[in-house]
């Protein structure tokens, strides 16, 4: 009797062990590691935080739904994120780590122009797919076939934005523009200057500042002496744009305000104050609760807010969209191999959080690597963001005709 019970015990133990080791094997899934880069600290930290959260939102959705089904395989997505503090040197280090140490084939998410250039020196030779929201003009090109911009840039936004301004407020003649003095800032200024001159407006001042500047009185004193009708805080990140507008208001500026590369106006209003932020127009920013946006954006916004207790800005939406597009392209290709995904990406439009999204931009960048979607011009009124009109980037207009 005693011996039999002992046998039973051993059998049970063996069964448990067998099941225990067999169970994970049966549900064996592959893991797809995807890199996310961005400034997670410092003056441009809000960009990095939004990039990471956008990526988190989509990858968690995919994982909760059982993983990403590509061909016959199911992948759990795992994010690997590094902070590059908006510094090109740190970005190169982080990209090297992602590509050579973590062996990722996809980096979805990065911001601040100069850091994109640094990352591309690693990703392009290694054929690593790279999606970003950097605004550097040369971040896209035939020499960089694996690089995609997942957000409208100044080249898509500036011209329709200023055309709209000219029509809406014909009294605005004199324009001043200010941006940080690095790649994305200078490129944004260039695009704005081109749009302003193309529309026969008068560019009275074009200034740049060092990232991390807190006191804009000196620059503003110079700018305001030129008496602009419109001050465009073009590529300034939200906190710095907020300081510029606050200090311009203190120095007596009461003209119109634009933010060509405007993202996350909530932060801007917080820093500038309701009064100084009143009336800021922005073409690329997005209000997730607006009537102009796709219901999917609104849903994304609600869930984002529930999860992070903050309202998402355009960068969070853009990186969520980029994640969506890339993973859909993997499914379309039936593979996670980058060549096949690359081919799938450029082959057809995708329905995403933006609505219908086309990857185009050949006439500006000589290669179709720019995400194109309708943009909404918004205005800050009483500290709230109000969307007033939807306009199409010229390239999208041409494609949809």
């Amino acid at each position, binding site marked *: 009797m005693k011996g039999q019970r002992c046998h039973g015990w051993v059998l049970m133990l063996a069964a448990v062990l067998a099941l225990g080791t067999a169970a994970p094997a049966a549900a064996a899934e592959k893991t797809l590691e995807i890199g996310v880069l961005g400034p*997670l*600290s*410092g*003056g441009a*930290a*809000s960009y*990095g*935080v939004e990039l990471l959260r956008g990526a988190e939102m989509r990858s968690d959705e995919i994982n909760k739904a059982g993983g990403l089904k590509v061909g016959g395989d199911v992948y759990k997505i795992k994010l690997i994120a590094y902070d590059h503090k908006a510094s090109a040197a740190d970005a190169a280090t982080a990209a090297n780590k992602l590509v050579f140490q973590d062996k990722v084939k996809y980096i979805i998410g990065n911001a601040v122009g100069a850091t994109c250039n640094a990352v591309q020196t690693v990703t392009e030779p290694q054929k690593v797919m790279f999606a970003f929201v950097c605004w550097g003009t040369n971040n896209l090109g035939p020499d960089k076939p694996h690089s995609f911009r997942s957000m409208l840039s100044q080249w898509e936004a500036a011209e329709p934005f200023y055309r709209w301004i000219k029509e809406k407020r014909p009294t605005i003649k004199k324009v001043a523009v200010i941006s940080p*003095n690095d790649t994305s800032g200078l490129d944004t200024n260039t695009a704005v200057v081109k749009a302003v001159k193309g529309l026969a407006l008068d560019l009275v001042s074009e*200034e*740049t*500042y*060092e990232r*991390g*500047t*807190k*006191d804009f*009185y*000196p*620059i503003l*004193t*110079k700018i305001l*002496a030129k008496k602009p009708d419109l001050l465009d805080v073009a590529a300034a990140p939200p*906190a710095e744009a*907020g*300081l510029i507008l606050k*200090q311009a208001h*203190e*120095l*007596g500026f009461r003209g119109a305000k634009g933010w060509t590369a405007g993202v996350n106006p909530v*932060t801007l209003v*917080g*820093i500038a*104050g309701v*009064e100084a932020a009143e009336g800021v127009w922005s073409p690329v920013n997005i209000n997730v609760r607006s009537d102009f946006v796709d219901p999917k954006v609104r849903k994304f916004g609600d869930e984002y807010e529930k999860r992070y207790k903050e309202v998402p800005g355009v960068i969070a939406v853009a990186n969520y969209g980029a994640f969506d597009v890339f993973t859909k392209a993997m499914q379309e290709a039936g593979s996670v191999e980058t060549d096949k995904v690359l081919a799938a990406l450029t082959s057809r439009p995708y329905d995403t959080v933006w609505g219908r999204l086309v990857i185009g931009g050949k006439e500006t960048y000589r290669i179709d690597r720019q995400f194109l979607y309708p943009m909404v011009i918004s205005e800050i009124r009483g500290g709230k963001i109000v969307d007033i009109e939807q306009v199409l980037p010229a390239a999208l207009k041409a494609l949809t005709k």
Partner: protein
Amino acid sequence: MPIELLVQALLNGFALALVYVLVALGLTLIFSILGIINFAHGEFYMLGGYATYFGVAVFGLHYVPTLLLAIGAVGLAGVVAERLIFRHLRGKTLNAFIVSLGLLWVLQSGAQLTFGVLDKPVPSAFSGIIRAGRVIISVERFVVVLAAVGLIAVLYGFLQWSRVGRAMRAVAQDPDGAALQGVNIEFTSMLGFAVGCALAGAAGGLLAPVFAVSPPMGALPVVKAFIIIIVGGMGSLPGAVLGGLLLGTVEGIGSLFFSSAAVNVLGFLMVIAVLLVRPRGLFGAA
């Protein structure tokens, strides 16, 4: 160039330079009493900023009492830092350099983890602008300037006429000599360190509504403070004030002609120029 523009530029430069003088005075006070340079000094400025943020934006207190509380809180933080760390480093310049750099990273990363990386706005208690012809200053900055000048005056009076202030000067000029008059060196050093930190905290609290607060906010003022005390002379209060006014002039006027990146270089050029002529700074003891 219109004269108003010049006056406005000078005003811009002076307003902030006076706040940086507060940071510089704290740094130079600590240097003269303990013989060390605290590279984490800017982090006490940051703590003053966050203390103000919590008082005003989180707990909804009025700005003025919050500022006073913030100054006191940062002073206390200074006491803790002195007791735990810096008292052991008196006169050990190199050790203090390394340890304070470490403290800088600990405080900055700690702030990132605790307060988050994003800039936090601090609502301003003062609105409106003061206009004289075409020269403009916001009431907010005007109050900041007044407060900075007031604090500099209070510090001067404290060091000049109070018993403890005189003891601090005595320790700075001759620690043994001071001990033989009955000055408790350890206690006085701790107090001096706390006052130095409180000055940085005051500067952070004053500029918190002007610039918003963020974990790396201490980096810029501490660089300005170094320029000010190298130009003015280590350990000299009038030197720091003069250094601050010079920096304000150079940066204010310079900003009319150069880009903001180049203006930052002007301060360092001024340092080089002064060091070539007077290696110990304008008011430095020989």
